[in-house]
């Protein structure tokens, strides 16, 4: 099942531009955005844009992928801690799965995430690539 294009459209702010919510009282950043801080109940917030580099905290290798990513298997899914401390999960790309290591430095790149076959809408968003420059 591919993602509905209407859902993807609603998620552009975080999928395209890494927009996150920073709450005033706790100073905590949430990604994707939240209306209410789940710890303090605070609603006072500002929009921040996440940094584009970080380190792999943990990862898993997908050998048998869902159909829309079948041609890309094997690939890694990684939880990355960005330089501001925010953690997020995404697919690793341009990366040999045998080379993925905890602690490796990565950069975020804008990539195709999936498509509704050859005729449907293409969804774009963030992936991690090895940081080599």
């Amino acid at each position, binding site marked *: 099942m591919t993602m509905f294009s209407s859902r993807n459209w609603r998620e*552009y702010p975080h999928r*395209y*531009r890494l927009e996150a919510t920073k709450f005033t009282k706790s100073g905590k950043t949430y990604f994707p955005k939240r209306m209410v801080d789940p710890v303090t109940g605070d609603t006072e917030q500002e929009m921040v844009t996440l940094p584009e580099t970080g380190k792999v905290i943990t990862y898993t290798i997908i050998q048998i992928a869902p159909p829309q990513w079948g*041609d*890309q298997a094997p690939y890694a899914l990684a939880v990355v801690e960005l330089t501001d401390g925010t953690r997020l999960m995404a697919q690793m*790309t*341009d990366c040999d799965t045998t080379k993925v290591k905890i602690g490796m430095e990565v950069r975020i*790149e*804008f*990539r*195709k*995430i999936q498509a509704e*076959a*050859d005729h449907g809408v*293409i969804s*774009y968003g963030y*992936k991690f690539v090895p940081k*080599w*420059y």
Partner: protein
Amino acid sequence: MAGIVGYGAHLPRHRIKVEEIAKVWGADAPSYKKGLMLREKSVPPPDMDTITLSVEAAKNALRRSGGVDPKDIGAIYIGSESHPYAVKPSGTTVAEALGATPDIHCADFEFACKAGSEAMFVALSHVDAKAMPYALAIAADTSQGAPSDALEFSAAAGAAAFIMGSKNLIADCLFTHSYMTDMPDFWRREHQFYPQHGGRFTGEEAYFAHTKGATSAILKKAGMKPSDFNYAIFHQPNGKFPQRVALEQGFTQEQIDPGWLAPTLGNTYSGASPVGLSATLDIAKPGDMILMCSYGSGAGSDAFVWKVTDRIDEVRDLAVRTKKLLDENVIYIDYGTYAKYRHKIKKNA
């Protein structure tokens, strides 16, 4: 006149060598390498297309722009012959990803390999007309060559982006000249997957006539001669054509070297001379004069005379250099992987 406020490129890391393609089709690799003056080409992985290349190139241009707010960009024009959709613009996705929506004008340009310089030309014109403070022009392609065709050895992927403005310039555009005629040298009809070309007819009457026509006209307009330039960049369908057109007009190998990328990059179509300009700006010094001349089949050439400003020294290392993307950390793939990445293998739906 208006000029470049920020520039940047993006290239895939994947490459395929001429030998790898030649062995599948029983072609003689050394003669192709010599004939095309090309050793390998870039290949976009399955999750990369003209839109994703455009976004990354544009981000590099923003990094070198001295803090241009994307909301101040009045237009985003993307020139490509490989827009991911037949109907749905590439420009709006790029604008959304950069945070430049909704008060913006977007258009996707097409003109074979000249679509990128066309976008640059129009973006400069908007700024010159004072219609907007900044206009972003992007030249990007993930071009396809039919299996076993000569084009398969060269059709590559890459992008360059230029934020045009009137203040805080990196390179001032002193002159432009466009030269075009109706030329049936290369085309792709609606619903056809691969383009077709006129073989040897793509040379003298097509590529060389138009690049020379545009170059001699802009030199006359500017009152300049080849030796007045520090660098020159010509469209690069292969390694040989840009070298020949440069030398025949009195430019030297040293003048074209920094932007002569086709021998290891291939033909990035709309991206070709713009990516060459990006690589040339990376090493240019204040005061340097640069001639750029595109070529698009159908056919036409857009020529530009750029004068590099003092700001180049402040901005060149605010984003990755083009040659670094070209030369370092490349991933070589075999023909099977290439065929899969480029959707050349028939599968059940």
